[in-house]
């Protein structure tokens, strides 16, 4: 993306984010309090984040790929299972990938 397109992306997304937040403050609470709305919202959040994990770890452009990011994600999952804080999880994953690449793999 060019700098101008990136700026437009940043600003449009920012405007949309604020509009969504403000809408919540302006609409009557009961409009959004239904079980179906709450459930769908939380499931969409899960789907987006999981999909981003897959895209960031197992793809290279439009190809599926396996490289140093895969063991790095496995290390992150183990760290999360041990209730490591966010930054420890991220740093361990980066260190795993960096270490494997320094050894000449992935």
């Amino acid at each position, binding site marked *: *993306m060019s700098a101008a397109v*990136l700026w437009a*992306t*940043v*600003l*449009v*997304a920012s405007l*949309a*984010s*604020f509009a*969504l*937040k*403000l*809408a*919540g*403050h302006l*609409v009557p*609470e009961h409009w*959004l*309090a239904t079980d*179906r709305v*709450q*459930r*769908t*919202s*939380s*499931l*969409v*959040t*899960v*789907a*987006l*984040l*999981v*999909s*981003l*994990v*897959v*895209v*960031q770890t*197992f*793809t290279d*452009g439009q*190809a*599926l790929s396996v490289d140093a*990011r895969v063991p*790095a*994600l496995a290390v*992150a999952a183990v760290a999360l299972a041990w209730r490591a804080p*966010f*930054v420890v*999880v991220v740093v361990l*994953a*980066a*260190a*795993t*990938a*960096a270490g494997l*690449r*320094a050894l000449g793999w992935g």
Partner: protein
Amino acid sequence: MATGLYGISFGALSAVAGLSVGQTATLSLLLFSGGSQFALVGVVAAGGSPVAAVATSTLLGARNTLYGAVVAPLLGVRGWRRLAAAQLTIDESTAVAVAQREPAATRAGFWVTGLGVFALWNAFTLLGALAGDALGDPRAWGLDAAAGAAFLALVWPRLAARAAQVVAALAVGVTIALVPLTPPGVPVLGAAAAAIVAGLVAPSRAAEEGR
């Protein structure tokens, strides 16, 4: 502390994705929703279109609308304060506000948390962006792997319920199926669409199990 380190990770990943320091700082000032910001730079880094980046970020920010509807009656503010309250409506400020029993503590919890996170998030995002710019080749530092780990850490606490686990598996399948067939950024939106369908058609009981 957690916000600060989280902000550094975001700033560095944003720089690696190709956003300038100014663009990264603007996201933290104006968009101000961690998950949405990570998602936007994630789609940009994967080569997605501007439309896919905005759509993914916006869908992930939709939960802030629900938070706004919950905190607005507790805060009871009008005018410019309502605009400020809207901008500060995020996971952290909402969680702290609704955890309080006294109305005064609810209001204080919302504003102190919201403003505190806003200040820390912006300061450390800037630091991360400057550091990310100075690092050079992101792959040598494993920063591309850090992005996947960051998203996994964000979704981890949301995977306790059975319905969430089913949708997570569905999202993996849809994403892997769409990656070779569609432009970058579209698989993530496909996974979101699948979750909307699942949320609308699944019987209520299934969602309640395991909560």
